[in-house]
């Protein structure tokens, strides 16, 4: 099992871009990004106004 502690290579530290870190993931290792700044909304909410489940001929107004 991979350690959940952060392990940085020398090259990584030299780059001083400490935005990515290892994170244990249910026993699976993986690289995790930094989160978005708290309270920041990164993406707009898209409209979703169609009804039904099949393609309809409806050009956006």
């Amino acid at each position, binding site marked *: 099992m991979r350690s959940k502690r952060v392990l940085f290579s020398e090259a*990584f530290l030299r780059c001083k871009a400490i935005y990515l870190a290892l994170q244990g993931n249910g026993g699976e290792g993986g690289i995790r990004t930094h989160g978005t700044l708290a309270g920041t909304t990164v993406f707009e909410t898209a409209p979703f106004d169609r009804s039904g489940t099949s393609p309809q001929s409806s050009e956006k107004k």
Partner: protein
Amino acid sequence: MSLIMGGSLSGCVDAVIETALTEQRVVGAVVLIAKDGELLYSRAAGFSDRDVGQPMAVETLFRLSSVSKVYTSVAVMALIGQGLLTLDAPVTDWLPDFRPLSPDGRADTITVRHLLSHTAGLGYGFLEPADGPYHRAGISDGMDLSPLTLEENVRRIASVPLLFAPGSAWGYSIATDVLGLMIETVTGQPLADAIRALVTGPLGLADTGFAVADPARLATGYIHEGGVSRRMADPEIIPLPFLDGAEGLRMSLARACDPGAFASGGAGMIGSAGDLLRVLEVLRQGGQPLLSPALVAAMATDQTPGMDLLPWPGRGFALGFTVLRNPAAAGSPESVGTWRLGGAYGHSWFVDHANRMTVVAFTNAGLEGQSPGGRFPEDLTRAIYSGGGSLKTNMKSPG
């Protein structure tokens, strides 16, 4: 081929980046390299927006173009894992009106597998002449500021005859946009919400989605031409130098900030290099918590044996990305089975399982930074594997 690591890796990759910046082939770049689950190299260089002096940062957001296909394809596989979609079921089970005719006029069955592997017979407008059938039908490739809804765009795709009978050949296509509508239909959610629920949310990734709220975080697009990189116009049509007769890519920088633009699962997402690295590493390590190892294995299986992929010699296409069959034919030092894809706004990524390595390289230089075809990703790959070869040949003195 063996890898170089540590200081040698850093120096060689730095050299590729510095040369590309000096030669103005690239305005800015974020390069991330992970090996054995450890981040070996992370660098943001150059400018996100040269015209206002905004430096590139690791957390800069990019218009993902075809990198979007990874997220949409993983979302489809996740729905298959949940039993809500079936790989070999007809698309009409979920989109009953999606019945494009084969070239001979027959109504052949298109499956989810065909769409994921680009063997359905669909096309892409940018690969056609300006008067091609997709253009005549008014179909958006998902990178322009189209007034269409996703439903209407898919309806128009279905109105154009297929280029070939499903399963009989391979052709890079807008199929992933059709999958996006399938995802909306199955989940009852907008594609953005569905991908958040199925892919980015479980991994805690907040920097990938549709329609950016803060344009200041978004890299500006540039094009390398005439020996320099210039800011993209809006709209812009980027010609494809490797494909005679094709109109080229219709792009709009404004699309990324327009919440009304339809959600293109094949080309319309925005995201960070770090988010993609995270998703690819999850897949490389077996898929949890997004997919089962069996689904990842299925996703990485070549669906195009015996077929030649025109822009990717030596590679086949799996369920969402290419897989390397023959390194010699591909002219690549990567290991057999390496996954790879890129994006027209200047992106490349690959996962080399044999070397337990994942690489993400996002630039804001259209085509130059793209895999396939761009010199920057080719130099970068050679630098990572050997630090020699054409990298040295291509190197020029700064200044």
